[in-house]
């Protein structure tokens, strides 16, 4: 497809026809768009170096460089459009894929990512991130929640309560994300909701990233005595699947959108099945 896209009544999402990456999100209701690139990268987990013997491990996130490596430069893609869902399937590698979905009536883009088993036969521990890049002028600022409630402003290489001399340009800027992370300028806000707690940051202006999976080969010398190397049932390493909801709105209206969505993310409706006509429970009503 020369110009792959998916849309619903709220959003139109464009993809790069060559690399298959997310390229732009258009907010149809409010008539504005934002170029948004998203892909998966991995930080090479430190095993200790000349500066410090500290390795990345269960307690410690310490990449051995500030520039993460792309999982792949492009993705093989498939497009699926039905009346109830439009989705683009991206296959970055045997251990990294994603489905980007729009459904009628949903004012957000759903990214269902599947990562693992993380290959470590090269002897390198890996910390996998999903990174979003935009032209937003964020001046080093980004926002993360605390336990799903108060959102705090974060500022790169800075702490509000003491003079920080930054020794870890990446790890020193990672914060806990329990439900949401966002970046914004005066007009536009890009919010990403998570379906579980993850590490998050904004290492470059206009970008935000979330750590979705890790597989490490060294103990971090905090008393555990084993690396964070979850073999999973088949011993090949855990496969993890999760969801990120991407919301693009004006900065003033963004909270109206992400607050109810985050509630649904944390306490979604629950499906139970029964054979045949099943029970006649207290009936629901549309809407």
């Amino acid at each position, binding site marked *: 497809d020369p110009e792959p896209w998916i849309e619903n009544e709220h959003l139109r999402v464009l993809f790069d026809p060559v690399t298959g990456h997310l390229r732009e999100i258009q907010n149809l209701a409010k008539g504005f768009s934002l170029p948004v690139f998203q892909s998966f990268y991995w930080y090479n987990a430190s095993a200790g170096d000349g500066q410090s013997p500290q390795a990345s491990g269960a307690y410690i996130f310490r990449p051995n460089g500030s520039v993460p490596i792309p999982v792949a430069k492009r993705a093989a893609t498939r497009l699926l459009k039905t009346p109830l869902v439009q989705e683009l399937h991206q296959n970055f590698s045997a251990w990294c894929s994603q489905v980007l979905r729009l459904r009628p009536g949903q004012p957000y883009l759903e990214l269902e990512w599947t990562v693992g088993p993380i290959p470590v036969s090269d002897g390198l521990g890996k910390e996998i991130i999903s990174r979003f890049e935009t032209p937003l002028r964020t001046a080093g600022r980004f926002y993360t929640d605390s336990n799903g409630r108060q959102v705090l402003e974060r500022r790169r290489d800075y702490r509000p309560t003491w003079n920080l001399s930054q020794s870890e340009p990446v790890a020193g800027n990672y914060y806990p994300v329990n439900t949401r992370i966002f970046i914004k300028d005066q007009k536009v806000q890009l919010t990403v909701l998570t379906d579980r707690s993850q590490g998050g940051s904004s290492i470059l202006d206009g970008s935000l990233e979330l750590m979705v999976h890790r597989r490490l080969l060294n103990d971090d010398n905090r008393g555990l005595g084993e690396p964070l190397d979850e073999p999973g049932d088949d011993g090949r390493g855990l496969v993890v699947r999760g969801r990120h909801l991407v919301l693009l709105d004006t900065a003033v209206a963004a909270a109206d959108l992400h607050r109810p969505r985050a509630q649904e993310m944390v306490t979604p409706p629950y499906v*139970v*099945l029964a054979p045949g006509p099943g*029970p006649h*429970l207290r009936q629901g009503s549309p809407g």
Partner: protein
Amino acid sequence: PGDSSVLREAVAVAQHHDAVAGTERQHVANDYARQLAKGWDSCQVLVANALSLLGDTKGPFEFCNALNISVCPLSETTPHFTVILYNPLARGVAWPVRLPVRGSSYAVTDPQGQPVVPVSCVTQRLRGGAGGAPGELLFQAWAPPLGFSTFEVKQLSPAAPGDPPRWPSG
């Protein structure tokens, strides 16, 4: 008898900083998961009992815990089943339901007995899911605040020819 104290106990144990942060040894992490899974199972019996009371029925209920990888034995093998959507939020929600199925077309009726349209059947080949079914049934459901909705699903035609059954891998 269903019992929510098993899960309450498991969640209480998992308040330990190791469980919260993932800094425990592997065998301890496995044990936290085991306790939580046992608690989950015991709560599902409790929910099934509640549904039986609410519906004056003894019908068996099935909780498909692996819908995220398109595995649900009941919807994959039964041509006639009911989907019960429980909404824990204090406001009504519309919710997309997506179930692995073997048939190629289905009729869905809502709590008022009206047909739900549209209903989509998509091939699962795109998803490469772990499930055994060749396709997925999609429809838009909804549920009232803190309440249930039941949607009846009937298969209209068998699997599309040439769709070999794919057994769950692994």
